[in-house]
């Protein structure tokens, strides 16, 4: 997030796009609703009728994958009606002329046609966002999980810059990060192209710095992303994987392909707290302890580094992940892995990561710290880009509409989009173990529009088979207006219904994020098996 969770309440307008906030980020969902109670104008842009639609002044129900068109359309109106923040653009941004020119490609009629949103609504949204300042944008995977996810994010950045809605309380472009420490894992370099603190592996000076610090020769060539690692394992190019605490056999697109890939590995180590669906493929399984059994830090979606503390002793002989990894390194004869505690690891992180430079456990005792926090005197940063963008001037990006990689056709006439439930988490490794949560949501339900259900002759609660080019799964349907005509929605929380058998591994060329939000599928009735074959 460029801003903080707390300052959502300062926003006069909130654009919540591609986020089902009340399900996936419940506390932020409460904040948004409180703001609405106090008069904040809420615009929800989502193909699905998510919880916040109830609270919204305006709901833009655009077709899945048409975000760029919707946003460019809004920006054209803002510019045409003279609502752009010329002062901000003049002093803080560049490439505006070219960008403005590119808006010509988005006349309202075309926007209506592609997005399916009536022109008046697009206009109203544009005015509402541009005139109620400060305005904050909230988004999640509904924006990023597309083959053109990077374009979507750039469109949002354009919109914020165009109206000067960045760098001020109550404004900003705010991705809500999904998992507890997805922000932190990125921050400390669990990415193929950067060292901790987003320092490029291809930068020679940085490479030298880390070589000196770690006493090892380092490779300046960026590595593979998870979405590339799995195909490389499938092709036999990657022969061994050491995996910690993830469950790609359920979470990654095209599940069958993932399992084949894992099966082909020469050597596969999995470190987890449960024998996950993925761990069952492993050659060695290492028992890790849960967050309640260890010390450390998580970094939340607003860049706040907060302490995790040990409440109970590790279960069995399980050990914290850092300890296990360090032991492996030491068994391999490596130097630089004799940390005595997570606190000592954080000291090394702070030494090598400018944005974490002022963070240490002593300071974290008094609550969290938001990075960038370069020195021990620095109070942390609640709002980014207040005076200057990371790259200097904010650059407007002209964008062209690219449809999703897989569009519905005769054979696969419906769009499958994946979403999440409040009562489950990710692949369910933790939440499936909690009885009460499974009473609330214990099985997959394919959300389908009444009209689609009717034309398929399907009743509520009936078992159906959902089929894509990659696989098929069966699940009960839930007939609901919340899913628009032509779109079905499923979660991916349930091993019994591995939705990602269906999803398309095609990914964004820059961010390498797969297109979970649009896969072409068809829904079939499950024919009753002939009962009497045995007789």
């Amino acid at each position: 997030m460029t801003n903080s969770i707390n300052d959502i309440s300062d926003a006069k307008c909130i654009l919540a796009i591609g986020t089902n906030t009340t399900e996936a980020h419940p506390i932020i969902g409460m904040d948004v609703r409180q703001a609405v109670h106090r008069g904040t104008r809420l615009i929800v842009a989502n193909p699905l009728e998510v919880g916040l639609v109830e609270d919204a002044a305006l709901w833009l129900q655009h077709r899945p994958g048409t975000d760029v068109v919707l946003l460019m359309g809004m920006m054209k109106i803002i510019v045409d009606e003279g609502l752009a923040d010329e002062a901000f653009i003049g002093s803080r941004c560049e490439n505006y002329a070219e960008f403005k020119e590119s808006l010509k490609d988005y006349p309202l009629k075309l926007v209506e046609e592609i997005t399916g949103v009536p022109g008046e609504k697009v206009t109203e949204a544009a005015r509402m966002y541009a005139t109620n300042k400060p305005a904050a944008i909230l988004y999640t995977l509904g924006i990023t999980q597309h083959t053109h996810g990077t374009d979507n994010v750039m469109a949002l950045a354009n919109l914020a810059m165009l109206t000067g809605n960045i760098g001020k309380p109550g404004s900003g472009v705010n991705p809500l990060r999904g998992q507890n420490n997805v922000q932190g894992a990125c921050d400390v370099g669990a990415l193929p192209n950067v060292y901790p603190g987003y320092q490029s592996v291809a930068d020679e000076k940085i490479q030298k710095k880390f070589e000196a610090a770690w006493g090892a020769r380092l490779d300046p060539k960026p590595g593979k992303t998870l979405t590339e690692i799995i195909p490389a394992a499938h092709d036999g190019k990657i022969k061994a994987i050491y995996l910690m605490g993830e469950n790609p056999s359920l979470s990654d697109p095209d599940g069958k392909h993932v399992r084949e890939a894992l099966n082909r590995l020469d050597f596969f180590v999995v470190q987890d707290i449960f024998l996950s669906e993925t761990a069952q493929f492993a050659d060695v399984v290492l028992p890790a302890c849960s967050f309640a059994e260890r010390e450390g830090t998580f970094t939340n979606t607003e860049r706040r580094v907060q302490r995790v503390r040990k409440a109970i002793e590790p279960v069995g002989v399980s050990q914290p992940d850092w300890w296990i990894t360090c032991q492996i390194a030491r068994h391999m004869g490596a130097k630089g892995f004799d940390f005595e505690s997570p606190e000592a690891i954080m000291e090394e992180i702070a030494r090598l990561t400018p944005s974490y430079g002022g963070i240490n456990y002593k300071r974290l005792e008094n609550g969290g710290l938001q990075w960038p926090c370069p020195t021990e005197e620095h109070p942390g940063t609640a709002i980014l880009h207040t005076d200057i963008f990371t790259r200097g001037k904010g650059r407007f990006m002209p964008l062209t509409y690219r449809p999703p990689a897989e569009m519905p056709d005769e054979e696969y006439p419906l769009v499958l989009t994946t979403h999440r439930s409040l009562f489950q988490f990710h692949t369910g490794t933790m939440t499936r173990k909690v009885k009460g949560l499974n009473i609330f949501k214990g099985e997959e339900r394919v959300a389908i529009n009444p009209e689609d259900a009717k034309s398929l002759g399907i009743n509520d609660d009936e078992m159906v088979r959902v089929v894509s080019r990659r696989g098929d799964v069966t699940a009960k349907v839930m007939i609901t207006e919340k899913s628009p005509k032509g779109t079905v929605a499923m979660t991916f929380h349930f091993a019994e219904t591995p939705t990602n058998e269906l999803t398309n591994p095609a990914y964004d060329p820059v961010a390498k994020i797969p297109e979970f939000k649009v896969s072409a599928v068809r829904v079939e009735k499950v024919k009753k098996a002939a009962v009497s074959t045995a007789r």
Partner: protein
Amino acid sequence: MTISGTAVAGDRKLKTVSLTIDGLKVEVPEGTTVLEASVKAGIYIPTLCYHPDLEPYGGCRLCVVEIKQMRGLPTACTTPATEGMVVTTESPAINEIRRASLEMILSTHPCECLVCHRRDRCGPNDICLRSVAVDDRCVTCPSNQDCELQKVVDYLGVHELHIPRDTTPRDIDNSNPFFDFDHNRCILCARCVRTCQEITCVGAIDMANRGYNAKIAAFNDLPLFDSICRSCGECMVRCPTGALNPKEVIRSDKEVKTTCGYCGVGCSMYLGVKNGKIVGVRGDPEGPANQGRLCVKGRFGIAEFVNHQERLNMPLIRKDDKLVEASWEEALSLVAEKLGKYRGEEIAVISSAKSTNEDNYVMQKLARAVLGTNNVDHCARL
């Protein structure tokens, strides 16, 4: 955030007012209520419907005070403090009125233990000298000794009821898998209703009916589970009695402050521990992202998976296509030996968005410095 009223300041610089409470000079920001001013001055005024996170309600009328030049006895929770105000928070007359209000509340509550002088010494299995029905006893209530109603009764010293009791049995809604709603113990303070409206903004419950039939109910009087309730339990933590209570109440021996391991909001929380097990979770009021609030997963979804019997408790090694238990030494040596055979392009490390920063740091360091590969990623994209 509205919940504690702290962020109201914003760009306005707040003026202060000074007033006298029980002879003490108190200075508070404009807009502070007489009750809040008294709390700030360390003066106790009994309350039941008041809660610092919620808008003033003035329902229980226990906080009545005397204010010079004001007629009658205004409720401190709804009266703004003004310059020069002179407040008296306690006198025999004030307490007499408070007791009358409290008796009204108690008339629909199982109150025999409440007014019994032996209450503190009574254990759950003791024989009751007054033959109070088991379900009516404080000792069988999950809130016993942690109950705001008990505290207020003790403070005001109510020992008998001067008005008739209404002992009609009321429903117990145990449809929610995590907490019960025992309407017999409900005093209609509406804290739960206001929480669900003002804090979670779900609006699942409301005050239904009037008079003796009044009750807190979901739309159409549906059981909570079938209502739009999101099961966050925020109402439960603000309930002053045993009406809303977790299904299982185990008091912890110690609490450890940590950060929720589920989603990226990063709610700060206290894990309650007893006998080496997690027995409860409490939102941290100082938590910068959550200000005390938690969702259903954080509040009710942690202990069970952490304490789960399927937790891996030994390293496993595949032998003859079966995973069999092994020692750490055996497993680590094997992993080190095998991983050592691959370098660079041939190997990849998948780190975790669920693990800590420190875990992820050593993981990518291992990949880069030891395995010689930048093939390191996690499921940020999924």
